């Protein structure tokens, strides 16, 4: 199915996605969106792993992706729980308002 | 090749058309059955026995005034019902509607849009996306009832997906570890239907299916006594129609899945003897059609059961719903899984 595409394109693609995610984390203020950008980063990694797995004809790359998914789910659960707790306390989730700890 | 493409196209059209038609007539049957259960007559004006009622309803839906709330997000408001409908229709594509048949030229056609080897997962995938339609619709309405309805719907669907998935895993173990629907159905051909091995699993699946399709007694997302119309409070005209329609399509598809998973799909008892008796040989298109008939009958029965349940049982309270989903069905399904593993081990179907 994938004949004729260089692995470099996949490297490039996931790098770009990864960087977009990273920029999002750095540039956005809204906690939820920051969180989503992290998910984007993880997905870039997943894509890369699957591409390499196809390249090496090796299933372990794909299996690794499962673990990443599990971890991502766990992280999101915890993160959103914390977010909703913060929301309960301050009625906002802007990282701006989260500056009670001085920098 | 061309013939194959045309054939697939036709199957697609048939399946979608069938889904829509069944959905439409489900509304009629819903009303008719509810009337029967309540000592009433039900629709009987449009056409004989009110058979044209769905058409009239549809027409009415189309010609109603379209109202889009001012402050809502227009795009999302339209996207919601469309997505819900889309996902509802997509599920039909992996269901094997009948035995595959062979033409004289020797090529085999299956009564199925596509037979992917991870059909069960595909189903779950599509079902899980189905939540988006409701959520987006409810949210875009900018109405608190709609929002509450949407949140209820999504949390309910997500919650019950868990138990459902686990009960299906047990089923997959029973049916020899395949994720392809056609194979699951096929392996019930020779033996007995899976319901024999999976009574508890079926029960769980059935309850979850009720919840997944937002049917009573789990129709909290649209419970009118609390939430006016639930997630589609702000919807009118055909967009409302899409929501209602999609719900019936979901019901149809989940009935089909239940029939395929637990009741042998297009198989029926003594099918082979019956075919021999009327003189049909394997691969005949008539076998497929008769099988489809059997399948369809089962589906209709299930749809009726859905409705029957609706008009019998009162609606759950929200906490009861969650309690049932997480504290009863989930452990039960795990128990079922455990039992299944033990049983299948002794049946010799799995090895460690």
């Amino acid at each position, binding site marked *: 199915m994938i004949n004729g595409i260089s*692995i470099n394109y996949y*490297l490039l693609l*996931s790098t770009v996605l*990864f960087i977009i*995610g*990273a920029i999002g*984390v750095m540039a956005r203020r809204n*906690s939820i969106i*920051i*969180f989503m950008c*992290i998910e984007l*980063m*993880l997905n*870039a*990694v997943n894509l*890369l*792993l699957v*591409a*390499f797995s196809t*390249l*090496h004809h*090796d299933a*372990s*790359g794909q299996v*690794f992706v499962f*673990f*990443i998914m599990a*971890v991502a789910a*766990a*992280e999101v659960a*915890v*993160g959103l*729980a*914390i*977010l909703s*707790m*913060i929301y309960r*306390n*301050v009625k906002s989730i802007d990282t701006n308002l*989260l500056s*009670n*700890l001085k*920098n | 090749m061309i013939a194959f493409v045309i054939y697939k196209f036709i199957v697609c059209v048939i399946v979608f058309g069938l889904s829509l038609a069944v959905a439409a007539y489900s509304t009629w049957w819903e009303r008719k059955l509810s009337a029967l259960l309540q000592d009433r007559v039900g629709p009987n004006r449009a056409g004989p026995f009110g058979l044209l009622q769905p058409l009239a309803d549809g027409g009415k839906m189309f010609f109603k005034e379209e109202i889009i709330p001012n402050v809502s997000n227009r795009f999302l408001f339209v996207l919601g019902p469309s997505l819900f409908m889309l996902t509802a229709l997509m599920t039909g594509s992996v269901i094997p509607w009948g035995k595959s048949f062979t033409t004289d030229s020797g090529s085999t056609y299956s009564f199925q849009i596509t037979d992917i080897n991870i059909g069960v997962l595909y189903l779950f995938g599509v079902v899980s996306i189905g939540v988006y339609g409701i959520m987006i619709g409810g949210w875009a309405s900018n109405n608190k009832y709609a929002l509450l309805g949407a949140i209820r719907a999504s949390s309910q669907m997500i919650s019950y997906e868990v138990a459902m998935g686990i009960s299906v895993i047990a089923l997959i173990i029973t049916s020899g570890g395949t994720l392809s629907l056609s194979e699951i159905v096929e392996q019930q051909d020779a033996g007995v239907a899976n319901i024999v091995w999976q009574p508890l699993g079926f029960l769980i699946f059935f309850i979850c299916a009720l919840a997944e399709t937002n049917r009573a007694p789990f129709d909290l997302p649209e419970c009118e006594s609390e939430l006016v119309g639930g997630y589609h409070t702000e919807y009118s005209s055909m967009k409302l129609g899409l929501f209602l329609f999609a719900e019936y399509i979901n019901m149809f598809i989940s009935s089909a899945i239940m029939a395929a998973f637990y009741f042998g799909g297009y198989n029926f008892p003594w099918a082979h003897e019956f075919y021999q008796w009327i003189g049909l040989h394997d691969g005949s298109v008539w076998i497929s059609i008769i099988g489809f008939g059997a399948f369809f009958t089962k589906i209709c029965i299930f749809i009726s059961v859905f409705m029957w349940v609706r008009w019998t049982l009162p609606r759950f309270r929200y906490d009861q719903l969650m309690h049932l989903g997480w504290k009863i069905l989930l452990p039960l399904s795990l128990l079922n899984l455990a039992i299944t593993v033990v049983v299948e081990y002794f049946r010799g179907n799995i090895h460690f």
Partner: protein
Amino acid sequence: MKGLLIISGLGVLAMLAEIFKFKKLLLPIVLLGIVVAYALNFMEWTHDYSISYFTNMIAFDRMGIAFSGIILATAFFWFILANDYFEEDSNVVDHFALVLFALVGALMLTAFTNMTTLFLGIEIMSIPLYVLAASQKKDIRSNEAGFKYLIMGSFASGFLLFGIALIYGASGSFDLAQITSYITTHASGMPMFFYVGVIMILVAMCFKVSAAPFHFWAPDVYEGSPTLITALMSTVVKTAAFAAIMRLFLVGFSGVSEVWTGVLAGIIALSLIIANFSAAMQTNVKRMLAYSSISHAAFMLMVVLANIRNNISVDAILYYSLAYSIGSIAAFGVVYNVTKNGNENLNAFNGLAKRNPGMALCMTIAMLSLAGIPVTSGFFAKYFVFTTMIGTSHKWLLILAVITSAVGAYYYLKVIIAMYFKKLDTPEPVQIERSNMMVITLTSVIVIAIGIVPGIIAEIFRF
């Protein structure tokens, strides 16, 4: 390995305590369990250099066991210290379970032999800590700490994973041994992105140990989290992360050291400067300790930077971890008890010598140890690091380390000065539980003891 299983079992057991109503018994059970895990862990010591479990996913070699030992010992003290902390909280059981799960992750990090176990170990360790950091539900600072920690932790995980993916892409395996052999066999022909992967993993690990310039989350998180959780973060987590770094970079990527040493040297230099000078400016004790932990991280990284894998370097990082962990437990134990009234400023320590001479003495010892003054263990820790470093080409770092250590002494002494010389208007003794006092005393004694006979560690963990 058995230790790891026991700790996981304890975690599950802790969750059952609520149901079967043995909450009161939980702490003794956990302590006992840790001791048993400790013992069983060392039972494996007699085996060969490395026993691997589960098709080479995890292998408790001696290094792993030694680090596990440190982690378990620290955890043991921590649990005693946390005694009354647990009592006042309504979610006791959950706290227990989460801490134990974090320990499982930490133990995995000491013994992983595969990138999968590395990643999972980090996450198993981090996720409970995110929660624990945020566990003061009503306190917005705690919430915020938890969230920041989570965001930064996941961000770092992203980098770690990208690095792992790139390395997998080059070497075709997640197995550390295979990656190492790949490095040796393909010394010349490795694709460029392999190096990038190594650097990204380095960056991610530096995030985890909060080395500058990836440290910015640490002070906030340390300050916001409940004090005892901060103690846990700065001891167990640090130790585990260093065990991981040690294994990754001294065992796995040793062959490509020319790639990462430069970056690491920069990171260390930055950490030393930023951490020590920032710490000197803090008035919040927890924040100060956070910065101090960054500087200690830099010290431990120096051993990695030396990239000499022999007894000395392993001893060095081991000893440093132990000294730092134990000293931190003592320090945090005091900080926890002193700041119970909510005042986390340095002036909370005013006149502590008058109020609680014993506690003040322990704190003094802890501070002297962290500052690295003989004959406390902190001194030997620094000494070992210097010894390891001196043979390398990064001597300038050593000079920097010396200069910044002197700055470090400045802020540790600030605490001592506050305790002994600042007056307090109402000198009321701080209430402290007997068990807490015991832990603080014991850890202080250990700090001195292993400072007097540092050889004992090397003797015990003979490789």
